[in-house]
């Protein structure tokens, strides 16, 4: 059983990019994380990997708090935790062949322990992600965006991780290629029972990939629950705005008029744009359970 549990603050110039977030992912489960750009989604994803050290809080992975482990122990932890980045072009080294990129994690971790096996493993991985093994001898610039993203996936799978953090893996791809990559990711997750944190700002994509969805707004999780439940019956006004915007652009949501990028000093961060907001909202709301496994941070429900 994998359990990732996180609480904490990330402070830089008195700005909380991620502000008191807690959630857990069960093994084999996919949690979708959605929110506007700049709301702290990627920061959160990177903090889970310890690529950015959190200011405070814990990440508990398989019973071990990985924010406190030593560097060489962290290397062991990262073996079973992998991340797929948003822009595959910049995630692969342009000067080395695809094969070296795919084999590198195996060499670093010494798993399996000789080069011949790495090569055989790389061929198997290429087949898993639906690429011709001859692509192993090419450079990233010779591949299309969809192919590079698959190579990135192959590299991630090379160490047989138990948790994948997918940070907007398809936002740079077009519709038909996006479908290829998403379906591949879904198949791999289901076949190998890998847990996944799927970060995106596209509600349609998150909905079709996730078991549960967390909605993030200005560094805080404002709603968390079953994917069906969130998209069918959103309770938080921000989630309702998101769902409205994705269902149809024709019906003008009421809140969009007042929607401007201002920051409120205290209280609910959505208060300046919220159609339901009143004096109560000047206090900070906490996540409350409003249904089975459905949490919302809003006073007005």
């Amino acid at each position, binding site marked *: 059983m994998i359990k990732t549990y996180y609480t904490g603050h990330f402070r830089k110039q008195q700005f909380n990019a991620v502000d008191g977030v807690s959630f857990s992912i069960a093994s084999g489960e996919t949690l979708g994380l959605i929110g506007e*750009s700049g709301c702290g989604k990627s920061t959160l994803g990177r903090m889970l990997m310890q690529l950015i050290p959190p200011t405070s809080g814990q990440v508990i992975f398989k019973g071990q708090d990985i924010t406190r482990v030593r560097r060489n122990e962290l290397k062991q932890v990262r073996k079973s935790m992998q991340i797929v980045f948003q822009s595959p072009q910049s995630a692969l080294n342009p000067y080395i062949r695809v094969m070296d990129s795919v084999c590198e994690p195996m060499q670093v971790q010494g798993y399996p322990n000789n080069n011949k096996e790495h090569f055989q493993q790389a061929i198997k991985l290429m087949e898993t992600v639906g690429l011709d093994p001859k692509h192993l001898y090419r450079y990233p610039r010779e591949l299309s*965006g969809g192919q590079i993203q698959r190579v990135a996936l192959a590299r991630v799978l090379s160490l047989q991780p138990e948790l994948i953090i997918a940070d907007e893996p398809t*936002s740079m791809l077009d*519709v*038909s*290629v*996006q479908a290829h990559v998403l*379906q591949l990711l879904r198949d791999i997750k289901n076949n190998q029972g890998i847990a996944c944190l799927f970060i995106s700002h596209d509600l349609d994509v998150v909905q079709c990939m996730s078991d549960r969805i967390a909605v993030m707004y200005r560094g805080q999780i404002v709603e968390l629950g079953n994917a069906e439940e969130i998209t069918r019956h959103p309770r938080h006004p921000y989630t309702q705005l998101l769902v409205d915007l*994705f269902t149809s*652009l024709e019906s003008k949501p009421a809140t969009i008029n007042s929607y401007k990028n201002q920051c409120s000093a205290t209280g609910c961060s959505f208060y300046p744009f919220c159609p339901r907001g009143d004096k109560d909202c000047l206090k900070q709301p906490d996540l409350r359970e409003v249904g089975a496994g459905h949490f919302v941070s809003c006073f007005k429900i």
Partner: protein
Amino acid sequence: MAKLLNIRNFYASYPTRQGEVKACKDINLKIQKGETIGLIGETGCGKSTLALSILRLLPSNSIVSGEIIFQGQNLLQLGQEEIRKLRGSQIALIPQSSGTCLNPVLQIGNQIKETLQLHQKLSFSQAQQKAVTMLDHLNLPDARKHLKYYPHQLSGGMKQRVLAALGLAGNPALLIADEPTKGLDAVARYQVAETLRQLSHETGAGTLLITHDLKLAYYLCNWIAVMYAGEIIEQGPVHEVLEHPLHPYTVALINSLPGRKLTPIPGTSPDLLTPSTGCYFYSRCSRAEADCNLKHPVMQEYSGRQVRCNYFASSKEFDKNLLYRTLQETAI
């Protein structure tokens, strides 16, 4: 409505060491005043080549033929100086990547003002006023303060709106928007969409919208053209094309949306260097028959729409049953 842009039998290709890459083939497209035309299709199908050739911004070695008639003059035959006068003031482009298209060392206010002073011949203070009203209009909060910002201080959605402001600064008669919502979140996407819609309503400018976002196209466009391997394979009124697609590629594209079935299109897009003699979609098509690989389909007219598919060419009369069957297959 008056005809604004008329593209007739347009071909464009790039000579390379391996041979000629035919990026656009036999393109016929019309844009009326106040109309928004959507252009959709996968990466590398020639959408951006078409957009750039309207502005005559293709690399100098590219080979173009055909006619692009804009307000009565053929853009392909204009001299460098004449076309330069049209760019920005008559035909404007909102480029794709907002991150790289703004000058990183200039304040955005100066970039907008420069465009205004050049194209509308405004004085400095008038341009300042105008820039503020434009950004206000684009829902950029606190516009006066934002004019002093550099591009790196703005979010992706804000930069996209600044680019939109730059595009609109010359009051163009034709606006070409190349994926204006790529990588934007829901709210910013809505704001850009709203801006484009207002523009075509208020100024009566024509818009060519290049996008992957079918929902956005559905909302904004009157007419939509689907491109595949350099050809327009289907065009028609947007609601008809997206709700009842005729060409198998359009059907497949709609089915690959995450909100639909998420069925990817099998295979990869064809090589534009050595196109086959038959239908380009043959190897990936679910409906393909043997002679599809031999006979290249021609554009067929069906009740105001155009489709390039042998499947429809085989029956001379528009077959209601056929349409009915197509509708059931797509099940939208």
